[in-house]
């Protein structure tokens, strides 16, 4: 029994060591963003800002078209998320509850999309989206990013776990296939919908390379492109960069804090492990 105390100490110490590793970079970044420009580089560095200010934030907000970037990113993230949920839920349901050779083949095709990410086919994908007339539009950012193996397999796995009897009973009651899906199955899958929603929102909010390729007009830029343009400048304006970076993170942090439990309970690898 005397073995138990050191174990507790070790495990707790290790846990908090990792918390420090993961937390301190963010904390230092946040604290720095409240320092006035002059204080950022003046030695000796202090942990807390001596003269806390929000000038970095206001400067970032005014010197760039930040509100527009926010709006664009929000449009992309929300619409992509909604479409992702609809397509993943319907497809995952079909793959779970129906048997056909072509459904099995399509299951493998969807799996293959994880193996071959969009970055690999960047230039031909760009040409196609351009030829569809979606260049320089937010729709062009959303359309190719909607299909997701993770989402489809999360739903497939969930619907596999729903007893067949439920569907059979609905069929006996004369309920049509689609109406049983919408009335019975979809409401059941609410936790999956929530999990995929927050994940998809995070993916699209943080996307960089695809929006960068497809958007040319600064009016259509998303937040990540906006922030990256500050980083790419000849002389980085750190005060503005810190402010802009922190601002761009706020919506995700808020959403995460509200829907935390849905992320924490997700079993992402369940469907892929087979």
């Amino acid at each position, binding site marked *: 029994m005397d073995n138990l105390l050191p174990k507790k100490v070790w495990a707790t110490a290790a846990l908090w060591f990792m918390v420090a590793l993961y937390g301190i970079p963010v904390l230092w970044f946040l604290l720095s963003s409240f320092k006035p420009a002059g204080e950022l580089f003046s030695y000796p560095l202090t942990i807390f800002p001596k003269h806390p200010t929000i000038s970095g934030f206001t400067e970032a907000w005014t010197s760039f078209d930040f509100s527009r970037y926010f709006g664009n990113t929000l449009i992309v993230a929300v619409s992509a998320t909604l479409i992702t949920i609809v397509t993943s839920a319907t497809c995952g349901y079909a793959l779970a509850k129906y048997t056909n050779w072509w459904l099995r083949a399509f299951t493998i095709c969807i799996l293959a*999309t994880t193996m071959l990410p969009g970055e690999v086919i960047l230039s031909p994908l760009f040409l196609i989206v351009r030829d569809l007339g979606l260049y320089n539009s937010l729709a062009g950012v959303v359309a190719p990013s909607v299909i997701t193996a993770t989402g489809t397999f999360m739903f497939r796995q969930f619907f596999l776990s729903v007893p067949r009897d439920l569907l059979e009973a609905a069929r006996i009651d004369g309920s049509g296939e689609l109406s049983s899906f919408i009335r019975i199955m979809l409401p059941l899958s609410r936790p*999956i919908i929530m999990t995929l929603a927050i994940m998809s929102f995070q993916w699209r909010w943080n996307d960089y390379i695809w929006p960068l390729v497809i958007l040319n007009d600064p009016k259509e830029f998303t937040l990540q492109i906006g922030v990256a343009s500050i980083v790419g400048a000849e002389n980085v304006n750190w005060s503005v960069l810190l402010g802009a970076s922190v601002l761009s993170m706020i919506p995700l942090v808020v959403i995460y804090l509200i829907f935390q439990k849905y992320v924490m309970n997700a079993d992402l690898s369940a469907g892929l492990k087979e």
Partner: protein
Amino acid sequence: MVDSIPRAAGRAEDTPDRSGPRRWPRRRSRRGHRYTLVPLLLISSNLALFLLFFVWPAVIGVGYSFTSYTGVGSAPFVGLDNYQRLLNDDAFYAALIRSLIFTAAVVPLTFVAALSAAVLLVSPHSRGKPIARVVFFVPWLISPIIAGVIWRWIFGENFGLVNYVIMALGGEAVPWQSNGNLSLAIVIIASAWGNTAINMLMFVPAIKNVPAAYYEAASLDGAGSWAKFRHITLPSIAPTSFIVILLSTLGAMKEYALFQAVNGGGPGTENNLLIQYIFTTGFRRAQVGYASAASFVLMLLLMVIAVVQLVINRRKDS
């Protein structure tokens, strides 16, 4: 309704995992065959997107790789010229080798970090788990661009926290930005830092699903914590470990945004990885044909990596 995720996921995991991939159609009744139109309708949106944004670009990408297409006008056929050029292109080799080094470093680091975090979060001995869980997850929320900015800020050469501490302790400022290898090391740290949470999330349910009876039996035999971890936990979570390694490898091979934010792929072009190489040739220089050839090589490489890992995984199983 809310707490039905873990139960449902656990149950779902039990059935297909044990029965193996080939037996899953057995679960369906013969009556399923009657339906063609409904499932076709249900998968139609995903099928259309798959054909339009995945199959089609892959096909025309391979096609363009045999031409000198520039994105506009005609696409003159040049045979294997692009591939021959690629074989002699030092910049391509440099990007390829840099990508492989990056992957070889970042995957084990992410794996160990994610597994340690998961073990500590599941362990009954550690205190402060609710806070730790939230802190571990913050890097997941942060985009690669912002994560790059955060680490660039910490490892700034003339102003960074790390160099300040080193100098305060009497050391010399380390050239984090102007030395290519140190720059790569920062991206490796930043990448592992950012990818830990999502992989940890895969490990947590896997570790929880290990039957407690195994541990109890091992305790009776006098096994220590490390022995239990080594001989019970690790083998039990092997399928999850496989997925984590596979997905991390594929993810590392296509890293781009993080490099952009940390050092713009620099110093110079030293840390230009494959995606950046493809991006630069395809978009900045408009050599679509040549970039497509490079893409195709990357595609083959990813497939080889996936197949090799699958084979190793299968062999270990049997």
